[in-house]
């Protein structure tokens, strides 16, 4: 019974990941991780004896403990990865903000440079003296 419950949960998570991928709500680099985790769990829930064998191999008496250790390590890994991505994203946002601020001041300078009467002339590219894209 517990086995079937586990199976259902894992399969549901895998389907959810694939659906997000399909709809482009999830970037590949994150998806790869979750698919690996999902398939690993799937294998373990189908063949629970694998866990027993692995734990006796590493010398852990209670197989469940091995599961907990693995889960913990994995979660710490995921957290680290996300922190890294988050820092990178923050960096990029900061750079964008800087660019926008500089662009805004440049734009203000440009506006100030232009005499008022040419401002409405800008609506008509020809009058503005710029090349017109003609067909």
């Amino acid at each position: 019974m517990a086995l079937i419950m586990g199976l259902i949960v894992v399969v549901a998570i895998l389907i959810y990941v694939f659906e997000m991928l399909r709809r482009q709500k999830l970037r590949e680099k994150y998806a790869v991780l979750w698919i690996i985790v999902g398939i690993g769990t799937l294998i373990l829930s189908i063949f629970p004896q694998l866990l027993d064998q692995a734990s006796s191999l590493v010398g852990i008496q209670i197989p469940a403990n091995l599961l907990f250790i693995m889960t913990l390590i994995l979660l710490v890994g995921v957290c680290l990865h996300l922190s890294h991505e988050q820092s990178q994203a923050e960096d990029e946002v900061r750079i964008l903000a800087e660019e926008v601020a500089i662009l805004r001041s440049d734009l203000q300078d440009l506006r100030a440079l232009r005499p008022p009467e040419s401002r409405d002339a800008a609506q008509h590219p020809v009058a503005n003296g710029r090349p017109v894209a003609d067909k």
Partner: protein
Amino acid sequence: MTQPSDISSARKHETLVIMPAWNEAEVIGTTVREVFEYGPECDVLVIDDGSRDNTAALAGEAGARVLRLPFNMGVGGAMRTGFKYAKSHGYTQVIQVDADGQHDPRDIKSVLDGLRDADIAIGARFADKGTYEVRGPRKWAMGVLAWSLSRIAGTRLTDVTSGFRAANEKAIRQYVDHYPAEYLGDTIDSLVVAVRSGCKVRQVPVSMRERQGGQPSHDPIKAALYLGRSGLALLFALTRKRSTPSTN
């Protein structure tokens, strides 16, 4: 003139050459000038992707319009920017050309001509022309990719990772809607989704030249990784929903 908006006045021709460039100061000037000299009537847009050298300045000097991205986004991210630019400026066809000079500007015209009976035209290296060669895992990966994408597209494709590709208005709209920035996603994924969304693809044989300078991007270890990643990219591409580009 279809678009009376102010920005379209930067457009002088109907065709836009998009050139993603990252640290290509050594060659970018020559490449841009060659495109103007040997290519068809066109505007050139160089997307400088956070280069640490003066790629942007040299490209501007050579007569290209330059977009500078504030940080590196990869070829896919750069091309997205280019397609958006093309769409908002009303270009009717675009072609991607490598900044390192590997794509012969004399072939631009024939690849663009491929758009007469297709929405996407790929300049392909192995189609019995030229001497460009790859070996090892990268070659096998390319073989598998070419085979599967040929089946999906319903036409023989021999070089699906080629960056030398042209797109018409329909394909530009499709790309703006879906063009992944991931590694290999830009070539494989974008193609699969474009085909699924009803774009017609054909390939045009071209010759490929040696890099004209600068650093080649692929070392042997990367080449081995390439195999796995391209398989993954294909897998992801196959899961995608077909997309319906916005009509505006």
